[in-house]
């Protein structure tokens, strides 16, 4: 959100900034102007001073000329002795010492020249060489070798009577003349004067007051100096120290103060004016925003916009009202503290006391308060029902939370009149479903196709199967037509088992193994079962059992719905589709065809209960599989159930084979065709244990009607659930302790031999009550001999010498008996020669021999 600004403050600050800027600019400009003014004033005064300096210089030259004339006249008129002329001159005229001329020189025409003794003070040069360039009646600038810069004036000494006497030369020193310099400085009151020769750039005269330094700020003016010096171009620098005059500062500060006062006054006036002319009317106009006519043109668009918004909001409000009243729902808008904001007619009718209530909680029943509070806390999907008995109506309320214009969470309650709806649904529930449901009409074409297909079945299929098949079909169709349904509660596992049993009883055993996966958890769910579900399962199981080339697998899972998945290699025929659909319809189930011929049925069933699945943490199972097909699957199932499994090939193996297990909780005996094996073993165990109730379970692929008393059994398919159930039952009996026949006696271990030989030996040893174990070779002797350290080993076939010797070393009590002699037989093998075929007598003789 953007920060709001005060327009007035902004305007005032902007104007202030403008004025401050103006003030600074004025200050800066005025300072520069004052500075320039003062500087130009100084410069112009310097120019005037230059004129004064020039005049002073000229007057100095003039005075010197006058002195020259004076001396010349004195020399012409005076009749001085040549040698004393100078003395006399000086004696007569003291002013010569303080005059303009520094020294003079008289070049007499007819006698030796007279030299002013002061000349030596200025230059050591030869004077005549200096005045060679001198001009009559002119000042000429000359320079001596030793750096003296002089002005020389030449005057003719010529008298009317005496004629030409010679020349008088007067000299003024420029660079060594304090008198001249002081006069120049003094005349114009400047701090420094510099006279420079423009042609050569030499400084002829430079003099300043004592503490004058050029490094300080100075104001200087360089102007050409016009003098009467012959053929000279001189420049005069007039320099004054440029100390910022206090007057400048004072003037400037005064100006600035006045400027500040003026600008401040102007600023205040402007601000007041702006306030009065703009913001006050604006404030008034805002107050009268709703009035039809605003006095200012500038605000008209704003007003138009505002009124447009106003109209827009009004229209929205009207529409909202209309919607509220016409929605046939009770609508209540509450604010963040549940106070009723807006309420429509219908809601008013329901809650006539709302006017006297402070909040919505005051007039609504307590039962719905929690829901309203939940909605106020921001929960979504809050619904509740209210019955208004006095009005004889039912309303289903839905609470919506929303953020109101103040930013708080508020609530909207919408109540829908569900009276008629409920009433109708109740009525519908009372009505019986129609017997003529379309989906139950059989599709004849589909059935015919199925029957045609049936006629094409191969002859190998037994007639019983056809009969069974047709009877099942008829039963299913009959049940489909039936309207009443037997309802009972049953667990999924039991249901499956029952239906499978029913189906097999009609069709006979399947020609192949049926795979039905039903885990313990799924199988133990108790559901409500009716004919439709039963029939559906029958159909699905029929698909499993039906004699097809391909094998199918049925998996039952329970997620939210009961899912039954059939995976198969071939597609399901149309008749069965129709049948499944017809059965699914009343169950509200749905079927889906997935990829790879996987067919899935979803049934929305409610879990009524769950069977207890208590089982001892661990149990030991002896799995004697005999000719049972796919014994590994049973073993995997047992392992899944948490059992310890010892698998045995046959009954004999069970009895013969040594095991570390001390007690078997359950003994599973499997068979396919050889049903006697189960019976024999059970019998043996009963005999062995000396009791009839044993934890023995028969597993068979075919239904066995003659199951022995006290024996549990599973026939047909085996699932985890069934296994679990049967093991749970079996575990109730006492476990079986394995008792090897050889445990009390000396163990006999028969090695090698043909089947016939083994059979003879076995039966004979049985007869002799000798427990025996059968080994093909002795290579794994380490697994046996620790249990039978004093075993009698009968070698029906020759064995390697090294092996026999090493066994003897490890187990010295083991006795080896060979029935045949063979070459290089070791010494520890005793020979009890027998002739093949072995006879009972021979064996009996051997027993006696051993025992003796």
């Amino acid at each position, binding site marked *: 959100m953007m920060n709001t600004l005060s327009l007035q403050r902004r305007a005032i600050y902007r104007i202030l900034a403008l004025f401050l800027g103006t003030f600074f600019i004025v200050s800066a400009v005025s300072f520069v102007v004052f500075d320039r003014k003062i500087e130009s004033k100084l410069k112009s005064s310097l120019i005037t001073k230059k004129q004064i300096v020039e005049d002073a210089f000229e007057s100095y030259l003039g005075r010197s*000329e006058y002195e020259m*004339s004076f001396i010349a*006249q004195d020399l*012409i*008129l005076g009749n001085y002795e040549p040698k004393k002329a100078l003395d006399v001159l000086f004696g007569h005229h003291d002013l010569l010492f303080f005059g303009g001329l520094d020294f003079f020189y008289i070049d007499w*025409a007819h006698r030796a020249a007279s030299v002013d003794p002061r000349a030596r003070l200025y230059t050591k040069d030869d004077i005549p060489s200096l005045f*060679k*360039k*001198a*001009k*009559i*009646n*002119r000042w000429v600038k000359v320079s001596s070798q030793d750096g003296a810069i002089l002005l020389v004036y*030449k*005057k*003719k000494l*010529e*008298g*009317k009577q005496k*004629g*030409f006497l010679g020349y008088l030369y007067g000299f003024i020193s420029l660079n060594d003349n304090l008198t001249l310099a002081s006069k120049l400085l003094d005349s114009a009151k400047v701090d420094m004067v510099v006279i420079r020769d423009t042609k050569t750039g030499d400084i002829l005269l430079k003099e300043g007051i004592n503490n004058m330094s050029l490094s300080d700020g100075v104001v200087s003016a360089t102007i050409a100096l016009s003098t*009467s010096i012959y*053929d000279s171009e001189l420049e005069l620098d007039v320099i004054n120290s440029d100390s910022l005059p206090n007057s400048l500062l004072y003037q400037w500060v005064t100006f600035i103060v006045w400027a500040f006062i003026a600008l401040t006054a102007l600023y205040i006036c402007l601000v007041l004016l702006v306030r009065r002319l703009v913001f006050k009317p604006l404030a008034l106009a805002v107050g009268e925003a709703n009035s039809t006519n605003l006095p200012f043109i500038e605000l008209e668009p704003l007003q138009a916009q505002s009124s447009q918004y106003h109209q827009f909001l009004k229209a929205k409000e009207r529409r909202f009202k209309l919607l509220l009243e016409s929605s046939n729902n009770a609508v209540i808008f509450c604010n963040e503290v549940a106070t009723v904001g807006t309420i429509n007619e219908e809601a008013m009718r329901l809650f006539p006391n709302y006017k006297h209530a402070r909040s919505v909680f005051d007039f609504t029943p307590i039962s719905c308060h929690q829901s309203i509070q939940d909605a106020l806390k921001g929960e979504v999907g809050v619904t509740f029902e209210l019955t208004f008995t006095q009005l004889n109506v039912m309303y289903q309320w839905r609470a919506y939370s929303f953020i109101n214009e103040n930013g708080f969470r508020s609530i909207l309650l919408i109540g829908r009149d569900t009276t008629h709806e409920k009433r109708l649904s109740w009525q519908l529930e009372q009505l019986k479903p129609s017997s003529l449901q379309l989906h139950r009409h059989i599709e004849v074409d589909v059935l015919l196709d199925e029957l045609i297909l049936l006629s094409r079945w191969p002859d190998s299929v037994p007639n019983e199967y056809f009969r069974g098949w047709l009877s099942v079909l008829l039963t299913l169709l009959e049940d489909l037509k039936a309207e009443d349904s037997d309802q009972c509660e049953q667990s999924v596992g039991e249901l499956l088992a029952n239906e499978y049993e029913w189906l097999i009883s009609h069709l006979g055993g399947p020609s192949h193994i049926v795979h039905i996966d039903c885990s313990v958890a799924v199988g133990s769910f108790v559901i409500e079962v009716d004919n439709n579900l039963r029939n559906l399962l029958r159909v699905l199981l029929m698909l499993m059992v039906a004699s097809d080339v391909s094998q199918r697998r049925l998996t039952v899972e329970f997620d939210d719905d009961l899912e039954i998945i059939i995976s198969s290699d071939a597609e399901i025929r149309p008749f069965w589709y129709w049948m499944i659909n017809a059965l699914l319809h009343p169950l509200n189930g749905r079927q889906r065809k997935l990829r790879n011929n996987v067919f899935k049925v979803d049934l929305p069933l409610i879990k009524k209960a769950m069977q207890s699945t208590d089982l001892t943490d661990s149990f030991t199972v002896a799995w004697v599989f005999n000719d049972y097909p796919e014994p590994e699957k049973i073993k995997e199932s047992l392992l899944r159930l948490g059992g310890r499994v010892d698998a045995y090939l046959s009954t004999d193996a069970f009895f013969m084979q040594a095991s570390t297990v001390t007690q078997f909780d359950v003994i599973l005996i499997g068979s396919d065709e050889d049903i006697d094996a189960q019976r024999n073993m059970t019998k043996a165990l009963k005999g062995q244990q000396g009791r009839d109730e044993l934890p023995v379970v028969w597993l068979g692929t075919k239904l066995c009607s003659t199951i022995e008393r006290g024996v549990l059994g599973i026939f047909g398919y085996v699932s985890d659930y069934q296994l679990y159930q049967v093991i749970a039952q079996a575990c109730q009996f006492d476990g079986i302790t394995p008792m090897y026949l050889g445990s009390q006696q000396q163990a006999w271990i028969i090695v090698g031999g043909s089947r016939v030989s083994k059979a003879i030996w076995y039966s004979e040893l049985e007869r002799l009550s000798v427990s025996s174990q059968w080994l093909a070779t002795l290579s794994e002797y380490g697994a046996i001999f620790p249990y039978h350290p004093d075993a009698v080993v009968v070698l029906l076939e020759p064995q390697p010498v090294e092996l026999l010797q090493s066994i003897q070393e490890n187990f010295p009590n083991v006795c080896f008996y060979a029935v045949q002699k063979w070459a290089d037989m070791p010494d520890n093998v005793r020979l009890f020669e027998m002739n093949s075929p072995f006879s009972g007598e021979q064996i009996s003789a051997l027993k006696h021999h051993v025992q003796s």
Partner: protein
Amino acid sequence: MQRAFFTKLFVLFLLGACSSVQASNVMPYIISSHDFYRSSPDQLPLSEQMSAVINSPPDPIRINQLSPIRVAFLLSDSALNIKNKAMLHTFERRMQELGIAYQIFIFDKLLKGRLDNPYGAIQQDKPDYIIATALDFVQSRVVEKVLQKGISKVIYFDLSTPLANWKYHPPLMYVGFDQVKVATTLASYIDRQLPQKAPISALMLPSGYLNDVRCNSFLDAMADRNRHINDIQSVSNKQGAFEAAKRILQKTPNAFIFSCSQTISEGVVEAIAQQRKTQTTPSFPRHSSTELGDTSLFAQTNSWGMSPHELTNLSHRYVLVSSLFMWDDLVIAMAEGIKGNMEGRAEPALYVGRSSIMSPEQDNVSLHLMLQQAYRYSKVLQ
């Protein structure tokens, strides 16, 4: 202020005229042509332009005159003086050639006091142009007054050094010769011609403008060349010069006597001629150019190019060297100045005429041609 300067100037002139003891000095009051051109650089092209006009055939005036212009000539001495006659003749002739209608008013012998109130007399004729011919106190006073009133335009003849005091009311034109330059040229020539020890004397003019500008410049130039001048005397006329020369020649018969003006030169030539006659030296060379180099054997002087016997004097070796001024050029410059002024063109404020020297080394034809050139308009009078 200005008046005070003028008064001072006049006092100096008066002093110069009356006193021979105290030499006056005009130098501070004049501006040399060199300084003038330096301070006014725009004048130099105009001056060169004028030189071209003077040496080219006359171009008649291009405006229609409503009435003849009135030109007043101020002459210090007689109008019949050969110098003045030549000037007037040349002027008239050039004016005619230029097609300017004019009237000439001549005020002569001003220095001799012919007019009681020269300014009043001149004003009566209301001249458009006044031509002053000499810087004496009468003419300068009249000109000063005219310049102050601004009634007529003034052309100063034979004055190449503008007066500093008239800086703000200058005459229309100054025309004259660079006397310093001539003096320096002469000194240079004489220095080269005479042997190092040759005796030199100088006859100067009495104190005044020409003395200060020309004579003193010669002395300075000789001093600059380390030439010692034995005797310096001031003479004011031909007779004085003759006598002074005679005195000098008695002392040093072979002296070179510098004459600072044509009048002095004529006196000196006379004295030399007389000396020659009395001595009648058989060895004196006559028209022998082979012996011209030995100038120390006999007395000689110099001349200023205005003697009727200029060439003779040169050939007789009375005169070692003669300065030749292009007098007619000056007059033509005046006429052209008036014409340009009438046409409204810019004219140079100062025109410096050409000058050269004539020496015996030059042959007669050349010398004749030089004279013809110098007096190309006024030669008819000679």
